[in-house]
């Protein structure tokens, strides 16, 4: 089975715990540890490839994928021989298209490329400047984007503090850096709350999140994925991250988010999404099958007969009517605001 690049990134960043992974770790010689590789400056003897560049950035565990994409596009600008803005734009367009087609499953990669392209073509700040200073300005902005992304997480954590009250129980599905940041800040602010982590089969993201939370002395309980409805009674709010926020205001996130949101809705519990605004993507999925499925291996521990099919998709789409609010660096938003923001940017 073909494993999607999207899933590979996740595995590399979050150290998904699977038996496969354990086996690989034991015979570690074959795989170089991706976290150690640092971005290599572009060698001029080797032909420049935007995808290689992207991959070197992508393997840095603290960088979001959109940041890696924008950094890669900045590298395109740096190595470009173009002498006019138009040439540069065409070159960038080509690079971003090849990036996007290299991994069609990653939404934040696409969104990041689109956002940067939009900035290059739209921004009024470039209009009156000469070409070289415009170029250096673009590169500078792209390099600052990592900071913007980091700051976005801080802003989101700050905004969501009002919503976490003393004595509340939060159900978290999936491992998200933003959600972790939110919970971290709440713990720092001496809020009293407990967290239920879903196990997150087969990646066991919940194990990792519970690990991190235990370090912060936050009371945490792991519930298996099928126990979401069982434990929803005790839950006050559901917190999830997002791989992408789509134009309808719905989110695309780790498999199981949809059912968690459905259960929460039917029990009248608020569902909060924490996502940076550069994850807003120009997609309008109508149902689950509208998405390119991101495949991943599912390990059942016992051999499965070859005639039996296995559902391997790694994520699902949660429609906006099941979400209460989105916490983004643009502020606290209702799902309907997302399309407004996107239209403002792309129309």
């Amino acid at each position, binding site marked *: 089975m073909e494993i999607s690049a999207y899933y590979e990134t996740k595995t590399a960043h979050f150290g998904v715990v699977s038996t496969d992974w354990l086996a690989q770790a034991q015979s570690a010689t074959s795989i170089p540890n991706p976290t150690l590789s640092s971005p290599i400056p572009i060698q001029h003897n080797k032909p420049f490839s935007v995808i290689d560049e992207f991959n070197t950035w992508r393997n840095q565990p603290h960088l979001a994928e959109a940041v890696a994409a924008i950094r890669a596009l900045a590298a395109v600008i740096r190595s470009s021989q173009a002498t006019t803005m138009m040439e540069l734009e065409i070159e960038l367009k080509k690079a971003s298209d090849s990036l996007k087609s290299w991994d069609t499953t990653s939404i934040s990669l696409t969104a990041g490329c689109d956002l940067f392209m939009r900035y290059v073509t739209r921004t009024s700040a470039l209009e009156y*400047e000469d070409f070289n*200073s415009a170029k250096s*300005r673009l590169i500078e902005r792209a390099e600052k984007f990592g900071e*913007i992304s980091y700051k976005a997480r801080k802003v989101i954590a700050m905004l969501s503090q009002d919503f976490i009250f003393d004595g509340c129980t939060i159900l978290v599905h999936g491992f998200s850096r933003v959600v972790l940041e939110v919970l971290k800040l709440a713990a720092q602010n001496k809020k009293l709350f407990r967290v239920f982590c879903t196990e997150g089969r087969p990646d066991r993201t919940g194990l990792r999140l519970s690990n991190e939370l235990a370090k912060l002395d936050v009371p945490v309980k792991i519930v298996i994925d099928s126990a979401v409805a069982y434990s929803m009674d005790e839950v006050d709010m559901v917190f999830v991250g997002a791989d992408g926020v789509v134009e309808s205001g719905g989110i695309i996130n780790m498999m199981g988010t949809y059912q968690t949101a459905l259960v929460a809705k039917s029990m009248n519990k608020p569902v909060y999404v924490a996502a940076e*605004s550069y994850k807003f993507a120009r997609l309008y999925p109508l149902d689950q099958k509208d998405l390119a499925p991101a495949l991943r291996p599912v390990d059942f521990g016992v051999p499965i007969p070859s005639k039996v099919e296995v559902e391997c998709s790694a994520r699902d789409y949660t429609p906006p009517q099941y979400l209460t609010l989105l916490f983004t*660096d*643009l502020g606290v938003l209702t799902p309907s*605001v997302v399309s407004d923001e996107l239209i*403002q940017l792309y129309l």
Partner: protein
Amino acid sequence: MPDVQSLVNDFVNQLKTRKIEGSQATAKQTAEFLRSVISQQRVPHTNQAAALINAVRDVGEQLIAANPVELAVGNIVRRVLHIIREEDHSLTTAAVAGLGLTAASDDENDVDRDDHPVLSAAVVAAAARSTLRPPSLQTLLEDMPDSTAIPPPSSSGGESEGKSRSVDKGSIGRKLKHDVIEAVNELIQDIATCYDQIAEQAVEHIHQNEVILTLGSSKTVLEFLCAAKEKKRSFKVIVSEGAPRYQGHLLAKELAARGLQTTLITDSAIFAMISRVNMVIVGAHAVMANGGVIAPVGLNMVALAAQRHAVPFVVLAGSHKLCPLYPHNPEVLLNELRSPSELLDFGEFSDCMDSASGAGSLHVVNPTFDYVPPKFVSLFITDTGGHNPSYMYKLIADYYSADDLVVKRRALTGN
């Protein structure tokens, strides 16, 4: 400024003792009060906007803390802060445009100027613009100016042009205060006339022979219904009495006096009557950023009944009632508990209300407000027209600056 402080204390006392009631009256008096604060504020020659903003914010914190349940106070404080920012911005952009390209390398761009010799006026304008606008995807990648992007007084200004610029700034200063007071006057005017603007839309919503249900009494609703009546619409109104204050009685009397066919019912009869109702029209105490409504107690029941029978639930609200906060904040959800004397006469049940022993005695709780979630509201009618609940955030973004949302939080942590 001792006189300003004593005025503030007076006003705070009035708010604390609930001498000022009703969101419209509160909004109007708050705006008038802030206008006098601004006019008495002595402004320095440099950085006038910041001085005004600080003064208003200081006073605003105290006012909000005096009656945190009356959200109109906070709304008006934020509106005035927004007005100051806007006026300051329009003056500085006018100045930048006036100075032309040569002087466009304004002080705030000193650092940029070093690497980019020719920095365009467009950049300056864009930077100034983005301080006023709420953050958006469009500006995400742009150079985010610091929140103090209001240009600080030039310390390293050019020799010859520095002089002319400082003269310019002096005149800007005097003009700023004048413009702000002018704009606050407009705001007060708007608050006073919001009834008319809402009532004007009545004929679009109320049709011939319809049956309208409302609960309690709201001046906005009264004006709305009367405006439709004046346009020769004939319709029936069912008024629910609105226990425990029974303001519905007053409304029913008033409507009947104006020749409208009125029926008075008890609050408990709402479900019984709702099936023959075409539309529910109610007033609100405050409208939150997500489209939820803080309304007189009993309205959530009306909303549920309307939802059950698919009757449109229309909320009338002047723009001073739009609050940029989300109702999930506990301090916003804080309800006001009024005196139990509205429920019981003095001496009644006195044998079960043994205050000395305490335990096991009867409690009487009299909350003032209900929270109606946005999913129950079909339409908001404000002075700018009809809006969907999910659109309220947009209106709010027009009225307030993102920087001012935290006035309240700061006030609370300060206490």
